[in-house]
């Protein structure tokens, strides 16, 4: 059976290859349920029905929403799924993240990992999808990402609520001596209308939990939804407006010490020489310890308070070894450009692209080179974790997007079994993919071995956070198109080179596993777009630069949204076709896409003349299963270009909470606009040059446009919402700036070419 784990591990991030694993081991493990982790830790009078529902004798109803709450509202939406079927109000339940457990694996996160566009519903694509869903179960990674949590939870969590309700009714029927069919439920109570008798869920919970669950539980039809599909009050809002201690950085434990880290500013490099004497003697400093993890090398400072630790970190005088990658941004960029000249793997290859370009007349050709920089996540809450290692057991408190990985890697790091590790997942002051990383947890776990059993809260400075990220990779792209007689493209060739996020992530998490096969994320957002072009090729090349890169809100689509949609705008300009009209024609085979484009164009009154000094640009990206069109209006002002208004139309298939979805679409767009306007991570002497918000800023309130959002539900599959607003934002802005100024900017950030008000 070792092979099961091995195949699973091997295929974790590698996409299509995972299917082999699923087929090889059969479906036995897939069908076998995981034990309910809530059973181990029930309070007095509490009963549990499944990993998502606990009910106390006092009618306290607890729902476990086992995904990272980093602002996207998932704890609310997951709780609503259970509450809807359990027939309780959201104000009647307690919502918890729950323990790290394989029972909370995310299957949907991998389902779109195969080399198929979301709209490809051919037999192979569907088989791979269900295969990857199975692999998700094998791997059982409890993770939040890929805008997959609502899609993953939609059936599981509604069924959990429905199954619990079914058992509660059965127990109540027994107790009252009436038929289950004569009982109704509402607001956490069971009512026998004929007799007027009623019981709370709590009164029958213990009995109900001992009954055998029914094999078939019917879920409500959509027309009967009371909570789902309607905007809800978020369960975390009161805590967040009162400053409650809900974040990892707010953890306080008796006898707690404080600390920080100073890791090598050159990735993977070890200290050659380090003078700790000065730092060790500073007031409040207890101890400085060397740290070695798969993320890099450096020092942990253990102190009486965080400020003392920060000052001591500053005072460490260390020299670091040379890096294994080029020292500066220009040299790194050269490696990317060289990679672009090598043969890539084509993830899309329609028609015969080479032949189509062979005899293309010059005046029918459109050619362009694009580039985007490395980017930091820059979550508002800097990386931190609190750990306590005593009596051979490790407790770790932190906001994280992958609790079972935290458990596994921290157990390995301190040399104990996974059953001796308890992960307490807190709310997150932003994630955006950064908190899928393990570095902050590993550092705290290792430092907790050095405190004689006292807990320690390890907080990174902003500078440490900015300079030790798993960055959104830089990328370069080479694009060409051949126009037909009507100005429409008859051939498009796109080639993109970028360091591989998958290979980089494997090096950090599972260094013994070699990366296999092409990394689809290099071309995500370019190869899988709903355009029909007779000759259409999109290929990707992994560039060999080993600066750590990772999952940054919308991952490859954050790069390729800009590349693909910027180039589409160029094609429209060269072909003298309106860019909205051109997209509608190219998207004719995909009605959901056309409707999104039509909707956003109508909202923005596209085509109507604007006063001088104002212009609009549009872009469309299908990512994470949602079809999103954005139009940006810019104005030329004496202080620079001002982003006045943004219109967003998004087809998410099924909208579970329109309020949260609208907030996420706007959030994603602002995240993308912030990066497009001014963000870049650059390198000199092997180190990141930026350090804090003065040189890596984001959009401020005085730069924020107004928004108008439309949520559509035309496509038959549900899409994600946390990331999908980001990809079209940068190209829509760049296209608007072209419309305003005639300047085509093909390199981000735009601030290197224009000033923003």
């Amino acid at each position: 059976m070792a092979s099961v784990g091995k195949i699973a591990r091997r295929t974790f991030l590698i996409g299509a290859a995972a299917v082999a694993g699923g087929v090889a081991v059969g479906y036995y493990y897939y069908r076998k349920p995981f034990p309910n982790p809530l059973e181990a830790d029930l309070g007095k009078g509490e009963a549990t029905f499944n990993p998502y529902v606990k009910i106390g004798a006092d009618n306290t109803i607890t729902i476990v929403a086992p995904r990272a709450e980093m602002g996207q509202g998932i704890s609310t939406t997951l709780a609503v799924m259970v509450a809807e079927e359990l027939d309780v109000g959201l104000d009647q339940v307690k919502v918890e993240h729950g323990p790290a457990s394989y029972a909370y694996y995310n299957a949907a996160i991998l389902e779109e990992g195969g080399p198929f566009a979301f709209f490809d519903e051919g037999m192979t694509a569907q088989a791979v999808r269900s295969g990857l869903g199975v692999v998700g179960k094998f791997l059982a990674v409890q993770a939040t990402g890929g805008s997959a949590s609502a899609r993953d939870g939609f059936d599981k969590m509604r069924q959990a609520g429905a199954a619990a309700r079914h058992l509660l009714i059965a127990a109540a029927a027994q107790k009252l001596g009436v038929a289950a069919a004569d009982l109704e439920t509402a607001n956490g109570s069971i009512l026998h209308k004929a007799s007027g008798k009623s019981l709370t869920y709590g009164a029958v919970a213990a009995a109900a939990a001992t009954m055998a669950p029914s094999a078939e539980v019917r879920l409500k039809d959509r027309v009967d939804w009371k909570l789902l599909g309607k905007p809800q009050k978020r369960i975390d809002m009161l805590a967040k407006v009162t400053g409650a201690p809900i974040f990892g950085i707010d953890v306080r434990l008796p006898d707690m010490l404080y600390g920080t880290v100073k890791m090598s500013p050159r990735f993977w490099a070890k200290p050659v020489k380090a003078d700790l004497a000065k730092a060790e003697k500073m007031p409040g400093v207890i101890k400085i310890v060397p740290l070695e993890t798969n993320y890099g090398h450096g020092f942990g400072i253990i102190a009486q308070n965080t400020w003392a630790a920060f000052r001591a970190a500053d005072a460490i005088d260390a020299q670091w070894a040379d890096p294994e990658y080029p020292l500066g941004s220009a040299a790194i960029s050269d490696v990317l450009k060289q990679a672009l000249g090598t043969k890539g793997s084509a993830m899309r290859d329609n028609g015969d692209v080479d032949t189509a370009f062979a005899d293309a007349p010059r005046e029918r050709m459109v050619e362009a080179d694009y580039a985007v920089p490395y980017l930091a996540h820059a979550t508002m809450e800097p990386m931190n974790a609190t750990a306590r290692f005593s009596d051979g057991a490790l407790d770790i408190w932190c906001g994280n997007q992958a609790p079972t990985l935290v458990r596994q890697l921290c157990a390995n790091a301190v040399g104990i079994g996974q059953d001796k590790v308890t992960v307490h997942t807190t709310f997150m002051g932003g994630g955006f993919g950064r908190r899928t990383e393990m570095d902050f947890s590993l550092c705290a776990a290792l430092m907790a071995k050095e405190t004689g059993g006292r807990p320690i809260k390890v907080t990174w400075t902003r500078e440490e956070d900015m300079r030790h990220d798993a960055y959104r990779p830089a990328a370069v792209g080479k694009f060409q198109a051949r126009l037909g007689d009507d100005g429409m493209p008859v051939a498009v060739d796109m080639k993109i080179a970028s360091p591989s996020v998958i290979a980089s992530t494997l090096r950090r998490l599972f260094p013994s596993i070699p990366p296999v096969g092409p990394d689809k994320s290099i071309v995500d957002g370019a190869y899988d777009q709903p355009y029909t072009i007779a000759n259409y090729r999109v290929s990707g090349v992994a560039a060999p630069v080993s600066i750590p890169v990772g999952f940054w809100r919308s991952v490859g689509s954050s790069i390729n949204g800009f590349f693909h949609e910027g180039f589409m705008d160029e094609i429209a300009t060269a072909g003298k076709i309106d860019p909205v009209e051109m997209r509608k024609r190219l998207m004719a085979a995909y009605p959901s896409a056309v409707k999104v484009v039509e909707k956003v164009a109508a909202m923005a009154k596209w085509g109507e003349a604007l006063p001088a000094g104002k212009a609009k640009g549009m872009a469309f990206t299908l990512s994470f299963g949602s079809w999103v069109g954005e139009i940006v209006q810019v104005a030329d002002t004496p202080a620079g270009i001002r982003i006045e208004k943004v219109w967003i139309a998004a087809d998410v298939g099924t909208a579970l909470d329109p309020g949260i979805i609208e907030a996420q679409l706007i959030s994603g767009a602002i995240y993308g606009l912030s990066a497009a306007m001014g963000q870049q991570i650059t390198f000199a002497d092997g180190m990141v040059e930026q350090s804090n918000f003065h040189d890596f800023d984001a959009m401020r309130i005085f730069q924020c446009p107004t928004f108008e959002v439309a949520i559509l539900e035309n496509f038959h599959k549900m899409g994600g919402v946390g990331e999908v607003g980001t990809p079209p934002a940068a190209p829509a802005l760049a296209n608007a700036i072209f419309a305003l100024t005639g300047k085509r900017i093909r390199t981000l950030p735009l601030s290197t070419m224009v000033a923003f008000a």
Partner: protein
Amino acid sequence: MRLTVDGQSFDIDADPAMPLLWALRDLIGKTGPKFGCGIAACGACTVHVDGQPVRSCSLPLGQVSGAVTTIEGIGTADRLHPVQQAWLEEQVAQCGYCQAGQIMSAVALLDEIADPSDADIDNAMGGNLCRCGTYPKIRSAIRKAAALKTAGL
């Protein structure tokens, strides 16, 4: 050194160079004000000293000249400040990490200007960064809070 925070007096033994933020968080246990940047560039640590908004991450303890008010001192879950009430009604927060600072800046703004214009809001709130992009809702919540305050709620 004696520090008055949210109406309560604390005797603390600390280096006067320690920023107020770390005294509040690590020594006194007031975790409402957040650490974001340490250089007064993001506003997550905003508190009031004698009613004036300050970035506590960059204010040395030795220079604290008056009573400190944190998010925990302006209202509680049972008795929300009108600004908190407006934030709740408008469902402003996403991750929520910057919101204590945003709310403290907004409270100070409305104490100074009862009915702020868009430009007033831009001026008062420009130093408070939000990575989730809650700015449109912050704007509407400030307007709502102004109305709630004027109505004496």
